């Protein structure tokens, strides 16, 4: 019987395939991170120890550092309803075509009386140039917006709406703007809302940290 010859094989493995996979994944993650919603309104949110995730569908009120307020209607199913509701209740005289054009805008940052003229423009006004929704105590249009929103969501689950309302404020935004927003909420019987913050770990040694450990 002839001896069976076992051929000597090199122990080194071809790394090319593995390298390919690694860089494919790398490219994917780099692209995926950059595809996060492009922030038109740059806002540095404060941090809190809260760990609740921000819901996907939400009505976001953004406060920029120069005290302007913007409204973003994130619930696409109700967006058209809210816009047409405020159109009729505030007498904006918008046609159906103008309403649908308005619905395509990402966020609202104009006083109500300027909306019709802004829709006539071919290119929308740049985000930094928008004056924001007026929130002064004399002319708080956020109240009108909140009223339309509550009207559209009326009959539904109130707590669900409360979970959708988010206030996203800049660190440097002054308190009175925030207070005006809260006033608008109160006037429309919304007593619970949420604030978008940066997650932060609970400081070691604090009361909350100690009670969580038990």
């Amino acid at each position, binding site marked *: 019987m002839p001896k069976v010859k076992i051929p000597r094989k090199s122990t080194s493995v071809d790394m090319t395939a593995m390298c390919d996979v690694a860089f494919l994944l790398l490219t994917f993650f780099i692209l995926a*991170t950059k595809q996060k919603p492009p922030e038109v309104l740059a806002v540095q949110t404060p941090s*809190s120890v809260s760990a609740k995730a921000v819901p996907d569908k939400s009505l976001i009120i953004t406060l920029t550092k120069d005290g302007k307020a913007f409204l973003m209607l994130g619930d696409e199913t109700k967006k058209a309803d809210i816009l047409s509701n405020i159109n009729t209740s505030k007498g904006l005289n918008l046609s159906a075509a103008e309403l649908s054009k308005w619905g395509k805008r990402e966020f609202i940052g104009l006083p109500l009386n300027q909306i019709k003229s802004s829709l006539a423009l071919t290119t929308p006004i740049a985000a930094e140039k928008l004056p924001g929704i007026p929130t002064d105590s004399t002319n708080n249009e956020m109240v009108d917006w909140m009223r339309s929103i509550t009207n559209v969501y009326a009959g539904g689950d109130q707590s669900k709406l409360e979970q959708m309302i988010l206030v996203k404020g800049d660190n440097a935004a002054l308190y009175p703007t925030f207070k005006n927003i809260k006033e608008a909420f109160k006037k429309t019987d919304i007593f619970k809302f949420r604030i*978008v913050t940066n997650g932060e770990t609970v*400081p070691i040694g*604090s009361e909350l940290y100690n009670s969580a450990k038990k």
Partner: protein
Amino acid sequence: MAEMNTSSGGSHKKGPGVKKSKKQSTRVDLTPMVDLGFLLITFFVFTTTMSQSTAMNMNEPKDDTTQQLKVKNSGAMTVLLGKGDQVYYYFGQLEADKLSQQFKSTTFKEIRKIIVDKKNGTPIGDLMYIIKSDKNSTFKNAIDILDEMTISAVPPGHYAEVDMTPTEELLIKQTEEANGIK
């Protein structure tokens, strides 16, 4: 590198005077490159998940003048937020002749200890933190002080945001001027 010179075994005997150029393998060791690739992947995976924004719950009371909550002087601590991330506080009620002793100024770093000390030295039923924000304080301050309440495990309902009185506004203004805070 491990794979570089595999083709040229050392034991080849060449004839005298024959100069043969060494045949070098074109293969490069890819292991470090793979290492680097995966390192970057791990980095990106971690950074994407960690920078998630969170939502903080806010509960506002109903404006009901008929149901005013009375707070015991002994259990009340008023926290005032001013310009330039300054925090002012006093216990109980302001008394005209003892203003300078009552009204103290501090920072966000030190307020936690004061809050906890007050909490531990007061029966829980009497405990009440009253938060008042000045018109020059920022949104960050308002959120940070509420976060401090959560961090110090003050039960909900034992702290509330209230509008500032003119006396307090004046006191803050005077203190700010005295301390040179712009």
